[in-house]
């Protein structure tokens, strides 16, 4: 009986914030001019998760840092879904079609989600990026985009 009581005390003596990582896959894809792809968000947490997806064009500086901006006029993106509710330990796949009238194009599909609160009650949101590089030909597209931007680091 003592062992059971010890278990019970131990059970209620640990309370805090549950933090679970969410994941996106794949992180980067390379495409030809007409691109049809998908990415998956996995909810590793124990509570349902609302996810919204937004698209941004981006450019790179010489250090490889990205600067986001609204989608360029020549980019035609058709998302199958703009948001989803992902059940605990579940995975949701977002499909899309992307056309780029003047390749190369660099597009980031940003998945935003609220993952919890800090001890002070501040909402913690994360954004996970699925990056799409679109060129005339798929092969070495990311390499070409980075070279064109003058990126000197890996």
């Amino acid at each position, binding site marked *: 009986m003592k062992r*059971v009581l010890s278990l019970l005390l*131990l*059970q209620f003596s640990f309370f805090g914030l549950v933090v679970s990582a969410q994941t996106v896959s794949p992180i980067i894809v390379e495409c030809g001019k007409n691109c049809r792809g998908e990415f998956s968000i996995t909810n590793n947490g124990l*509570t349902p998760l609302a996810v919204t997806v937004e698209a941004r064009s981006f450019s790179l500086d010489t250090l490889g840092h990205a600067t986001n901006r609204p989608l360029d006029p020549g980019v035609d993106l058709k998302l199958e879904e703009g948001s*989803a509710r992902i*059940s605990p330990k579940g995975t949701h796949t977002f*499909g899309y079609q992307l056309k780029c009238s003047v390749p190369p194009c660099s597009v980031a599909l940003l998945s935003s989600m609220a993952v919890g609160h800090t001890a002070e009650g501040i909402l913690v949101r994360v954004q996970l990026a699925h990056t799409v590089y679109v060129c005339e030909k798929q092969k070495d597209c990311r390499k070409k985009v980075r070279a064109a931007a003058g990126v000197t680091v890996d």
Partner: protein
Amino acid sequence: MLRVCLCVLLLGVPASAQVLQLSGGSSTLLGGTGGEITAFFPESTLSASAGFANGHFVFGASDTFKFHGLDVTAGDRNFGYSFDGAGLGVSTRGLFVQRNTRHTSFAVFVGSTGIGYATPFMVTAKAQHIGAGFFLQRHFDNGLLLSSLAVIDGGKHTAVQGLSYRSHSLHLAGSGGLLQNQKYFTGEADYQPLRSLSFSATHNDYFLAEHLTTNSLSGFAGLGHITLQASLLDGQYMLLKTTGASAGASLRVGSITVRSSFYESNHRVLLVHVVQQHFRHWTVSGIVNQLQGQTSYAFGGGYQGNRISASLDRSVLFFPVGAKGFQQTTTVQVSLRIHDTALNFQTNVDPMMHVQYTTYASIYVQGPLAGAAMNSLSHSTSGKFMIAGAVVDEQGQPVEGVAIQLHGAAVVYSDSQGKFFARVKHDKPVALVVLLQEFAAPGRWALISCPSDAAPGTEVLIKLRRELAP
């Protein structure tokens, strides 16, 4: 008495748990039927399982928690590790402690060992022998990995050492020692001089009722859209020796893959030709088999979606047991996700070529400590017509995370620009409801205006007001 108290404890704590996971299932492959309830607390997880395995009532319970940086489990769990071709799994009942750091993993248990059942829906153990175990794995920066496993399982003793090395193009691994009182050695070498060229050689010992040995030698080459592979296999079980050879080539053009494979074992030659086409959600396969001058045809395929995935696959596996050599197997798998419930069904073929099935379901239930968790509403959208809109506050600023339900059960959320969209199947107006209790946005909100329905091709504007906390 202890069992009764544990049951009372396990039935009582779910009322205060953060999240509950309920699982249940049945499997002829794993020989059991039962269920499990798991209560997740912020710093611990309490689990209880019960069911029938091979006609006997079995049960299990465990409590996993952190203690001074250590992961501690009191109760039932599997002590199982594999490395460098060696592996051992023991069902234990007792105290289990583990710690994982960037370079080092260690685990230790003391208690009892015995027959256990570890399935996706039930984990139980039976105390039969006094047991203890120790596992240590150390990663070195130069690519070396050193592993040690020592287990006392009643009268069976295990002491295995493993060493592996991984570089850019080479992977060497070997392990040896005593595995459940039997001398044991296994080795593996992989060499990948180019990204599209690799060679592999393995030697393995399995400990079933009798000693089983397998060896393999294989090569793989990729030349643009063409891939080539070949392998030699050799197995021995109960003094019966089986050898096999296989070779294959595949060509990928766009979404279509054509593959031809040759298998030879026990003087039998099997030719398998497969044409496979991949779509966004679908995969369709046509299969032609040629065996001993006879030709047969089969079809396979699958669907992969967010709510449902299903597949019917045929594959060729090498079975050294019973000198069966290469055998064709069929696998059917169906997975469904309805709200927070996952349902799975799968058939498997065991080494004796018996068809076995496993089916199980699990559901997550949000407890009172989980906070304002969202309800289990459907959120799937599909169709060629689009309904779009925006959500703003009194000042016209966008509001993010607003949940909007469209008739037909689709629920969507507004993004950081306050915009949302949903796809519907029919070109006609659908009812629209703002779900104030489902917001992913912080704070309390009240509705100022929202149209009662929305038609495809039109922009909907929803206005909200932020309410001050009471």
